Every structure is written in C-alpha cells, then in structure tokens.
C-alpha cells in the first residue's frame, strides 16, 4: 500500500507568540518548532497501517528549510521517504495553495490513503485535508477518532455535536486525524540514525507547476484584545465568597 502522511512544522504549543509591530506576521525569534500534534496521530496511523498491511509511508511537508527537521522526525518514527516542498513563495501561504502543492506531489505517489491533521495549531484553519481531497477528486473523512481498513474500504468514527457518525469510504481517501485515534510512538535512537539516510526529495513551486498567489491573505495580525483585570473575591469564608460570586454573576455580569 502507498500511504502518505502530511506533516506541518509549527511552533510548540507553549510558544509565546508575538505579533510583529507592523502586523505583517509573527516574530519567529526564540520559537521552538515541532511537528503539528495532530500530524503525529497521522504518522502513527500511517505506520500502523503499513505494519498491518505492508507497503510504504511517504511524508510530505511544505515549509521553509527548517521543516526538514520535522520530516526527519517522521522518518525516525518509521516512515520510508519524504518530499519537502520548499520555496519562499510558499512561506506562510494559504490553505488552498498549500493543498495545491501537496496535491501536485501526492498525485505522483499514487496513494491508497492520505493522512492530514484535523488542523494545524499555528493557523488553526483546519482546511488543508479537505481541499487536498477536493483537488485530487477523492473522498475525505475529517476529524476521525477511529479507523479500520478492510476489503479495500475504510470505516471511520467521526464525533459530531451530540453523536458520532460511522462513515465508510472507498479508497483512495483523505483522513484527518483527531486526538483519540492512537498514541503516537516516539522516535527510537536507531530510528533517528536510520532516518538520516532515508531519501527526501526537495521540490520548489515551479517544479510542481502550481500557482503561488494565495486566495486568502492574512492582511494584518493583531495581538488579542486585552481582558479587563479580574476581581479576586476576598475573604476566609467559602460560603460568603460563593454568595458574593453568585451576586456578581447575577447583578454585574448578568450571566445567570
């Protein structure tokens, strides 16, 4: 089986995010970069499928030179090879253009199944998997917490508000991963050593023949609005403090 896992390099969840004074983006200084946490579930699921059914896992990432580290991490977890789309024209581009770049790479890989995260924790957009599926003209099942494959089909569980859907899809398809799907493995030391020798193709936008003009641009970034400082309800008596809280919620905030 040909299995593809898309991975994006993102700031660590603990990272302090500072907007540049001109609002053109974030200040990348001092940021620790990691694999998008949802992509860890994707890589893990890809590896489990390969281990169960045979085949090969290819990692694809669009990003600047540093994104190579994230590809190597996935290779160290056990994937066979990688494709790194690296082009300044694609730095901080939009979901559509990213998906177009991924599609151009993935078409040539003749995949049976493609994994993406349900969203990247930097842009929080949650679109690339679906757009990729749309461009490739294949079905998608998004935000999946359980996956089975049998008889050339997949069966997935997708939680929605107040219910879960059981979805069956033909292959190839795109799956986007949600927490709960699996417990991602750590890269082992031998894995890390082996990963250094695994092949990674580097491509630019021109080689892929894609348009690089984003359709949705972040025209400006701003820090979040300040929250007014809160009130700590003073006192020693829990009952008195609770009464004051309820009074404030009722009379001041008017929320209960």
């Amino acid at each position: 089986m040909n299995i593809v896992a898309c991975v994006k390099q993102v700031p660590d969840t603990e990272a302090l995010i500072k907007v540049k004074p001109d609002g053109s983006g974030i200040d990348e200084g001092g940021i620790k970069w990691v694999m998008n946490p949802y992509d860890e579930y994707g890589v893990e699921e890809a590896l489990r499928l390969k281990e169960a059914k045979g085949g090969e896992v290819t990692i694809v990432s669009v990003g600047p030179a540093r994104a190579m580290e994230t590809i190597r991490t996935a290779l160290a977890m056990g994937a066979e090879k990688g494709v790194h789309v690296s082009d300044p024209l694609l730095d901080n581009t939009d979901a559509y253009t990213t998906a177009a770049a991924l599609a151009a790479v993935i078409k040539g890989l003749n995949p049976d199944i493609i994994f993406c995260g349900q969203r990247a924790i930097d842009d929080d957009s949650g679109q690339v998997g679906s757009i990729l599926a749309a461009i490739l003209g294949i079905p998608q099942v998004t935000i999946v917490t359980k996956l089975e494959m049998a008889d050339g089909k997949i069966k997935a569980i997708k939680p929605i508000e107040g219910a879960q859907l059981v979805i069956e899809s033909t292959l190839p398809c795109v799956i986007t991963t949600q927490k709960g799907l699996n417990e991602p493995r750590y890269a082992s030391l031998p894995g890390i050593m082996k990963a250094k020798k695994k092949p990674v193709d580097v491509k630019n936008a021109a080689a892929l023949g894609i348009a690089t003009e984003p359709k949705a641009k972040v025209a400006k970034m701003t820090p979040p609005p300040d929250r007014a400082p809160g009130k700590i309800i003073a006192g020693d008596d829990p009952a008195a403090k609770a009464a004051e809280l309820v009074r404030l919620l009722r009379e001041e905030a008017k929320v209960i």
Partner: protein
Amino acid sequence: MAKGVWMVAEQRDGALRKVSFEIASAARKLADELGDEVCAVVIGSGVEGLAPELGKYGVDKVYVADAPVFANYTTDAYAAAVAKVVKENDPAILLCAASVLGKDLSSRLAGTLATGLAADCTELKIADGKLIAVRPMYAGKCFGQVVTSSFPQMASLRPNVFPVKENAKAGAVVKFDAGVSDADVKAKTVEVQKDASGKMELTEADVIVSGGRGMKGPEGYAILEELAGLLRAAVGASRASVDAGWRPQSDQVGQTGKVVSPNLYIACGISGAIQHLAGMSSSKYIVAINKDAEAPIFAKADYGIVDDLFKVVPEVTKEVKKILS
C-alpha cells in the same frame, strides 16, 4: 459580477441549528452594508418546511435541495449540492458554520470552488466592498484579518459568538435539483450513534462548568454536575482529567479538545495551562475557583475565588438554588 451574501444553514433531525440563525443575522448585517440580498441554502431530506424560519432572521431567499440522498450528512452529497447552486448564482460572500459538519463542508467547498476560506471567524466587517474576516490564530494568541481575492469570499463562523437578531424578510423558498445521486457518495454515513445521555453539547452551551485535575477523581465531578444541572450548563474538563480517564475525550476543552465560547465558563481545579486557555479564552465571562492563588487561570478570570473547590462549589450551588427558587 459576484453579488449577494449567501449562507449555508445547518439542520439536524428536521430542525435548524441555532448557529444557522447566528449566521443569518451576521449575513443580514453584511448585506445591509453592501445593499445586497441574503440567500440561504438548506440541504436535507424533508426540510422544505424549515425555510421560512430563516426569513425571521433576515434571509430573503432560501434555496432548498430536498431529497432522500441528503437524509444523513455526507461531504460528497452536501458539497456537490451547495457547489452547484453557488456556481449558478455567483455570490460575493458565502458563510458557513464552524461546527463540526460545517467545518467539513466549508473546507471541501473551498477546494471545489477554488476559493479562499477564513475559518472559525469571530468578527466580520466590510471595507471597500470587501469582506474582512477576523479569526483567532495560534490558539487565540493573536488574531488575523483575512481578505480573500477570489469569489465567493468564504468564511465559517464560530458558534455562540455572533448574536442572533430578528429582522423579518421574505424567506421565499426556491427549490433546486442538486442532481446528486447515491452513486456520487463515496464516503457514506452508515450509522449515526446518538449520545443518549442527553448531555448538553459544549460548543453550544451558554454556560460551562469545567473541572481539572483538582477534582481529584471521577467522583469529584458530581458537585459540578449538580451545579451544571441548575445553570443548564454543560460540563467540561481539562486534558489532565481526560487523560486520567475521569472524563470522556468529548468533554475536553483546549488546543487538542474543543474550542468553546460560552457566556460563562467556570473553571474549577484547572491551573490554566496555555493549551487549556486556547480552548476557552474567548468565553465572555470566566470564573476561576482554585486553591493556588498563583494559578495562571486567575490572569484570565473575570472573577476568582482562591480556596478549596470542594468547599466553594457546593456553596455556589446553594446560592444558585436560592436565587432560582
């Protein structure tokens, strides 16, 4: 030229979901600024009767595709139907819900229509005739103003953020044939397993009472359930308590859980880790009950009580009972 503000209404089990009225109200506001119409799309089976309700919130026309193939939501059928009617009418703006199904549908549509989508927006504005969609990024650590150069300019709206406003318009029904058949559906919904517990959905709740590691164990949540019952609130949890197996994954609030925007979020025994704040900092009012005065949650809280939650929460419940009686 692309014209009109369009929206996709979300229905489930024969009723429109509240987020649909939020979107209609937001769409009306944009359309009034542009001097345009609001058109809604409703897809489903046996849903024609739902259309007039949208009129109440400012929708001029409702395009309805009503067929058995739409009985359960499927990306393939719903996206094909919306894409068809959108392509035929060329709207300037297309709004969807950033609910679980709305996210699936809107992102697929962005691909099919090859256009830009600003996802999970919390504010929409018009400047020079163009849509400016404001959305949290980096887990709410900053906001981006998104401008789309292609049409329709798509945005999905975070549930519970945009106010519902009545503003009666015709809500005239226009039926259309989406030309979708079962054979077009490659990813089929074969079963809908409803949550029979009658639990309120976190992303739609006006009030959330949430507990973390400070609850000490699954039994600890009983006091939160009681308070939540009185406040008609949903009960949430931190990742620490979900990972400990005290609460189901579906209760988790935060970066790898649900993003919620209730009017009131009461955090009990939650320290306020950055990944937890990512999921709840857009709540209108935040209350923190924590015995550690240094807990970061207090920096985000509108009201805080530094004390043992097992002493405070039952007293809060008593007080709420008093005012409700």
